[in-house]
């Protein structure tokens, strides 16, 4: 499977989409998590 192969491209797009979702969730978890910890601390 070469870099210009459509199947390779499709697989790469799938991996990119998955990575974006995962990283966005990580960022959201840090945002919500720190507020949640602060609420419990107060």
């Amino acid at each position: 499977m070469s870099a210009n192969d459509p199947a390779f491209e499709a697989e790469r797009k799938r991996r990119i989409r998955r990575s974006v979702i995962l990283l966005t969730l990580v960022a959201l978890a840090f945002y919500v998590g720190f507020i949640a910890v602060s609420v419990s601390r107060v």
Partner: protein
Amino acid sequence: MSAAHTDHAAHSHADGHDGHDHHGPVKGWRRWAFATNHKDIGSMYLIFSLTMFLTGGLLAMFIRLELFAPGVQFLDPGKFNSMTTMHALLMVFGAVMPAFVGLANWMIPLQVGAPDMALPRMNNFSFWILPFAFGLLLLTLLVPGGGPAGGWTLYPPLTLQTGDALPMAIFAVHLMGASSIMGSINVIVTIMNMRAPGMSLLKMPLFVWTWLITAYLLIAVMPVLAGAVTMLLTDHFFQTSFFSAAGGGDPVMFQHIFWFFGHPEVYIMILPAFGVVSEIIPTFSRKPLFGYDSMVYATASIAFLSFIVWAHHMFTTGMPLAGEMFFMLSTMLIAIPTGVKVFNWTATMWRGSISFEPPMLFALSFLFLFTIGGFSGLMLAIVPVDFQYHDTYFVVAHFHYVLVPGAIFGIMAGVYYWLPKWTGHMYDMTLAKIHFWASTILVNVLFFPQHFLGLAGMPRRIPDYSTQFADWNMVSSIGGFGFGLTQLLFVYIIWKAARTGAPATDKVWADAKPAGLEWTLPSPAPYHSFETPPVVK
């Protein structure tokens, strides 16, 4: 980096890029407003950061003008505090961070052999958020009550006394954070998914490595800052008491949360500069980088340690002895991976055939002067010593040594290294060397006396001071005015190169045989970089 060997140059310009040169960028404002090309977006980031650097620098000139002599001459204390706060916010979020994102946009696809960033539309969005964020932030200077004046750390309860500017500043911080997070996601997915065949992680250029690690740092800590300022907002407008002792909250908790973001932020601003320097020193030493693997591990170690040292900014708030010991020792641990890096750069130059072109001069200046900032950081890590130096000009000297001859010289080194590849034109070497020497001398005139002022007890963030501090303040201000003026020369050098510079060769530094895929492309790099992926052996 050992991966510069490629068969790309031999064939792909003929069959790959030339076929695409006819559909270059669209003309007019649409090229920039709807830009999805990594080079266009990289250029916009770099121009934006230069604008913010000059704006933040202008505010610094006001600060140094007020501090030129004792007494309040030009700015009332409220305006002075506003100037220091805005200077810091503009420089950190508007100048240094976008400059590195600009370098990343330009260089990461070129260095990993990709046609573009993985998420071009998000790239456009993350850039165009920034002018609105900083427009909003600058507008706070015009609203009733003036701009935020509680320092860039936004500590409550002081920051909560801000007038109408508070929600604007907080929204601006949210926008900057969203932009940074989107930029980081783009960098990570590009590096992890778009590398040329054969380019394993440990064959990536150091600049790519440092950015990969920086992007993970950003994703972890920018939401924390966003959370902290959201809580400030609810404390101010929705009667919560996160940081209000009267309602059962704790203002020191804000400091813990802020510095959980703030200390990694320091490394966010310096790790990509480490990457730039790690590209330049081998080129102009005409030797491969010494200890490539250890450089990667040292960068990762610094990033990890940056998460467990935050409270060294808060020793004087009072904490248990065990806490002080932990944060002091963990902070000192950072000297080990940083020392590995300084040793490796030095070892790279050892018995090298060194030449002193402008990028190398800035890299060497970075090496010496950043190390001075590192050493004063070690001094501040010592708890009883920090009790004496805390909130004095010694701290101001320390972090300016890290950020100006550290981060900003790293950016300038990168610009001087890659500018011919971007524009296709060489810049005026003589002027660039004058810019280097003037900057290096004047940055020391500006910041070194601030060590003496701090050791003598001058507090930071004050518009007036005792007459005993007058002499060194005057010297520092003279250095500041000179350093500020010198940066106009930097703008002129870039402008002149872009307009009338001599054509650059594809290798640019051919005599030094630079390693990396970017040098296999023509100068200027074609609009579509690597449509046919190069093969890295």
